[in-house]
């Protein structure tokens, strides 16, 4: 097993490069100390650079590895999406794609097909995804923020075993979205425990398709998504609550403030900046909702799921799917970008 692990990593060229790098470093830096020896040696190009070029370029060097990875695996794909959006064809190779200009935008949003002039259906699908997602967001975000707040308030009380409860509520955050979807599918499928238990209790007569019944699917989407993410926002809110100085409450007590008034007039207003952060973050997250819902096979299609499917990431791609999906993804990215600009603006104002 050890040998296997080693072999997996030590593909020859990496190994030699790494050994060379460390050897040069060891020779150059004459690093001392045992435990941290490696760290001392790792940075030899930076120390060399500082010796010759001074302190000026150092921050750029510190940023370099991270930015390189970001550039290659986040920004380059984003630019490729722009490329896909502006070209057409089913290939993912740019040399096999033709220039399309705004055709993909028309294919996504237009009333008629640019190629045939026939009625375009894609716009309905996309709008449907957008409206469904909007409905999801409109319910999910306030509900989650509300419950995260309630949980945080409860956990901010002087309650026995606070640390324990705090981590309990955080636990779902540690589960993979696929597992979350799977867990809840086990419970929610038609033959699942929930239906059967409710039937045994006589609350329902026939098993309910919780995940596909149009009346329930949104409820459970919101529920499960909230279940999975609540802990994270609860933690942020808790930190916000703990940042409120305790003597404010003592002052309020001296002022004869009732607990309810203390909550509404002191806690909530002071928590506002944190609440705002939580609100916007969860808004952005909710718009990106995909994996849990996909794993549960809910019967509505979120925007990201729409893009995922249309781009041909699953199943066989349609001729223009890639371009259309890329266009949609750019629209969504732009929208989310706008949201976060809004957040920065708002929180800037909140911080005064």
């Amino acid at each position, binding site marked *: *097993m050890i040998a296997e692990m080693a072999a997996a990593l030590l593909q020859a060229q990496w190994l030699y490069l790494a050994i060379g790098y460390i050897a040069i470093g060891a020779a150059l830096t004459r690093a001392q100390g045992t435990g*941290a020896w490696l760290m001392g040696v790792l940075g030899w190009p*930076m120390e060399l650079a500082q010796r010759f070029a001074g302190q000026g370029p150092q921050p750029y060097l510190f*940023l370099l590895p991270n930015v390189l*990875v970001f550039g290659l695996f986040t920004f380059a*794909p984003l630019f490729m999406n722009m490329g896909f959006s502006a070209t057409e064809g089913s290939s993912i190779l740019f040399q096999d794609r033709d220039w399309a200009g705004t055709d993909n935008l028309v294919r996504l949003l237009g009333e008629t097909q640019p190629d045939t002039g026939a009625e375009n259906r894609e716009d309905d699908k996309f709008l449907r995804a957008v409206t469904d997602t909007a409905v999801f967001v409109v319910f999910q975000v306030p509900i989650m923020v509300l419950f995260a707040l309630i949980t945080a308030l409860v956990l901010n009380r002087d309650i026995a075993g606070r640390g324990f409860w705090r981590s309990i509520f955080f636990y779902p955050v540690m589960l*993979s979205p696929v597992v979350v979807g799977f867990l809840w599918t086990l419970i929610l499928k038609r033959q699942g*425990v929930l239906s059967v238990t409710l039937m045994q209790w006589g609350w329902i007569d026939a*098993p309910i398709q919780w995940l596909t019944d149009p009346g329930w699917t949104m409820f459970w989407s919101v529920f499960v998504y909230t279940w999975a993410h609540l802990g994270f926002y609860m933690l942020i809110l808790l930190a916000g609550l703990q940042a409120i100085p305790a003597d404010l409450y003592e002052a309020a007590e001296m002022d004869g403030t009732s607990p309810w008034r203390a909550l509404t007039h002191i806690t909530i207003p002071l928590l506002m900046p944190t609440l705002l952060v939580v609100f916007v973050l969860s808004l952005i997250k909710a718009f990106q909702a995909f994996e849990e819902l996909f794993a549960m096979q809910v019967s509505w299609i979120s925007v990201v799921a729409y893009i995922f499917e249309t781009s041909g990431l699953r199943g066989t791609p349609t001729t223009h799917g890639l371009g259309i999906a890329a266009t949609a993804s750019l629209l969504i990215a732009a929208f989310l970008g706008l949201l976060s600009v809004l957040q920065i603006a708002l929180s800037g104002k909140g911080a005064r």
Partner: protein
Amino acid sequence: MWAFLTRTQGRGRLTLVDWLSYGYLAFGFLLIFIPVVWLGLNSVKTAFQIERQDISLIPGDYTRVARATVQGPDGKRIFFITDLPDWVLNWRDLSAADQAAQDVAGFLSAQTGDAALALRSHLGQTEPQALAVIAAQGLPDWLPRYRTMSASAKAEVNIEAALAGLSPANDRLLREFTGLYPGARLTSQILVSAPDPQTGEIRQWGVSNIDIKRAFTPARPVDAVNAKVTKLPTASLQADRNVQIAWENYIDPLSGSSYGVTVDFTRCLTNSVIVTIVGTAITLLINSMAAFALSKYKFRGQVMFLALILATLMVPPTITLVGVFKAIQATGISGSLWGIIIPGSATPAGVFMLRQYMLTLPDELIEAARMDSASEWKIFWKIVAPLALPAIAALGILSIVWRWNDLIVPLVAVATVKEAYTIQLCLLEFRGEHTSQEHYRLAMTMVSLIPTTLVFVFLQRYITTGIANSGMK
């Protein structure tokens, strides 16, 4: 203990709000752990139970009884065979080795009548016996292929002629073998006892399935032949369960012997461990380097870099997956573990969280170190990194969780290279297009939860304080 539980702000006894709070917490606790516990319970149910969507809390199958259908010249007979040994009843669940280990011939020779026919077919003896007869009697060599010949080919041969002159037993055998008679069949049904609706006497019945959602369950009495189906009220059924914990759901995939799945689960675990450890190490290194630059220097383009990193938060990788795929291909790291490790190693949330934390470290420390002739790199790893340890630890935990749970990057990086599969990819393997190894999937999902749960149990202090205090905002 009570004093501990009822301890409050120090003033007064438990108030209504306290009771409500504890109630809320208890409810939340149940809500959070029911699915996980349910998964755990299900993961030790037998494949059959899972397939049957048996939602009982108890793992283990009902007591079963064999129901035989035998078709002959004189029509169809449906009857039950009781008291079969387990290995006969579960014959088709046995591995080839286990099947070979049984004294099938001996068992069959002790059987008589229709039961013998049904059991012969059930135990897979029809074909070898028929082939032996064909060889012994010198019958035509197309006979073994007869039942899959095209209709036109069948028309060209004369089966009746070929079978003429065989002993009744052999005739019967070959007719069954060539499909002239439908094969005798044996299925296992649930043995229940319930009052006969007509007579009220308690009888034993065989039923296909107990579905408490249905008011009635069609059943046949075990002691009758060709009896009509009776509709029994489901509530009146009494069935025994053999509690049986299906550890093989765990053992088979982990030992690489799971039926119908070609994934080496230990390999997946190993890969995931490598990816998680190496990936987390790289993430911590390069993210803290970037965070250091962004928090402790003033340089041209700083705001732009920060904005870029924040912008990456806006772009879920799911929607740029084709591009990510191309990038991984282009950098030549696809198909190896590096293809999983590298793309995920720069995390915007991580950089941001570490930066926020590092901002709280006093600049004076860095200036003191500069006065102390430390190089910038040394300042980074000897002063800033150790001091940012709480945040780095928090990010480390998150990174472990992210890495362990990541599906998207492995999917685009190594989908066609099975040796490099991580655990999440392997879990997908249990969900085939046409067949589903749900029982393995349940068990392996449970296994996949172990590391995150361990991290959770042992590091929860760091998680909750670390994340909350690292300015994840």
